């Protein structure tokens, strides 16, 4: 009887230890694979956007370390990107990280300017001497998917009255409603733009932002876990996280079309 109990206990112990070891191993494996993902993304960007040059010893290598040259190169990339937008897209967003502004443009005319209060940019995009990143940003990013706490078009359904007796004149819309404005724009080149409202003093705003952020993180982590489970490196998405006043964030989200384009200057 006693030996049976001891056996059961030791079996339980072994199972527990095995389980802990498997989970720990998977976590370590997942972390390592995730840490490899930025390098893989950079490699992908290099393969796709970097201009190939045969002579590696000449000035081309050294010139990319020169601040004056890089400044001009960045300016050129941003201008190229905005010219493409001005000629092809009606309403677009341009984010200038150097002067902390997010602008809405229509056919080359800046129609709205918003001041960015806070920003966080992924390391990949901040590699100042990386010509591949500049080449990538020389063409606009196209929004492929958006996740938001507000509607793009706040459509309200109204049934037509059968006759004049059923007709009710419009009531004044409630403009005091201040819904939290947070959204994430996923782009075709894998870059993600997080735009969160600056106002975060109310508990409702904090909860809403936390829930929104958590939901997105869960979705992202789940897809990464699935990839790692099939022995693939998870996808890395370079990001730009910015905070804007609520009204400005709302204006931008409503103005930029569903598959709108974005120009980024860093």
């Amino acid at each position, binding site marked *: 009887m006693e030996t049976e109990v001891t056996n059961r206990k030791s079996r339980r112990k072994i199972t527990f230890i095995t389980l802990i070891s498997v989970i720990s191993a998977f*976590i370590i494996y997942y*972390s390592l694979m*995730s*840490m490899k993902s*930025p*390098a893989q993304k950079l490699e992908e960007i290099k393969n796709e956007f970097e201009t190939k040059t045969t002579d590696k010893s*000449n*000035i081309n290598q*050294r*010139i990319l*370390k*020169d*601040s*004056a*040259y*890089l400044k*001009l*190169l960045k*300016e*050129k990339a941003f*201008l*190229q990107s905005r010219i493409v937008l*001005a000629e092809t897209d*009606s*309403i677009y967003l341009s984010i200038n990280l150097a002067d902390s502004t997010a602008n809405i443009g*229509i*056919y*080359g*005319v*800046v*129609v*709205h300017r918003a001041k960015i209060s806070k920003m966080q940019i*992924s*390391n990949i995009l901040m*590699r*100042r*001497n990386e010509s591949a990143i500049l080449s990538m940003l020389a063409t606009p990013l196209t929004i492929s998917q958006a996740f938001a706490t507000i509607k793009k*078009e*706040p*459509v*309200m*359904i*109204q049934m*037509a*009255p*059968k*006759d*004049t007796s059923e*007709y009710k004149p*419009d009531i*004044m*819309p409630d403009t005091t409603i201040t819904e939290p404005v947070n959204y994430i724009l996923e782009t075709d080149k894998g870059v993600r733009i997080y735009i969160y409202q600056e106002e975060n003093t109310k508990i409702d705003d904090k909860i809403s932002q936390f829930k929104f952020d*958590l939901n997105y*993180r869960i979705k992202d*982590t789940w897809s*990464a*876990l699935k990839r790692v489970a099939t022995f693939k490196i998870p996808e*890395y998405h370079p990001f730009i996280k910015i905070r804007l006043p609520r009204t400005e964030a709302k*204006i931008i989200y409503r*103005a930029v079309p569903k598959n709108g384009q974005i120009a980024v200057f860093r």
Partner: protein
Amino acid sequence: MEDEKIRNEGTQPGIEKNAEGAQPANNESVLRQETTHEEVSKNRKPVLRLFHGVLIFICLILVLFSLILFLLYGVPVLKELTPQQNKEIADNKELKKDPDFKKKIGLLTKDVQRLSLKFNTYASGQSYIVVNTTENRFYLYKNKQLIREGSCSTGSYKKLLTAGGKNWTFKTPRGKFTIQNKRTHPAWHRPDWSFIEEGSPIPPKDSPLRWETGVLGDYAMDLGDSYMIHGTIYKRFLGMPVTHGCVRLNDEDLEVVFNTLNIGSKVYIF
């Protein structure tokens, strides 16, 4: 009776027995103590077991919670900690003297100037108006300078549905438009939806019942597709999204806008 005997043996007579012979009494008390200990430990075991179980459960929950936290928040931080090959950016004096460098930087400067000039041509030097439909505000520009701004009313985003399945969404279109026509004392030719919205019968297209005067203010500027910039009798709604797609302004602003913009002037709506 026997029970009583036993109880009695265990109390008063026990003292007598103690006096008679200490050994057997000691054995009994040890036995009794052991049994009470067993009983207590038996009673305590389920409580301890429960406590132990709860503790393990809490520990497991905590471990699981920190694991999830690590996956959701820790791993993204780890990704950003990966070593960067950020080479130092420096102003190399030798490099600046290099004729190849001078040539390259010259070409790049020319490129930037050319692109900058091209980009600046998109910004209109003429008068234009910008309408912000989210905030319901307008901005009037002349020679690239803001000369007037104020409240306006734009599309309500109301979707009118009929029993027959017809529908209209009252939103102001976004993008670049031009003033196609300018009118003073405009009359409004009421479209079908304005009758459907009120529940009144729809008159024929050429019916005089369709024409209404005084509701569009003193001026109207056509943007195409029946959209206009015009005045309003509902001034208390200015600054709110209440229109069927047109842009409504108050009388003073409308006059300034009408006098500043010409046919062909640009209207930017976002």
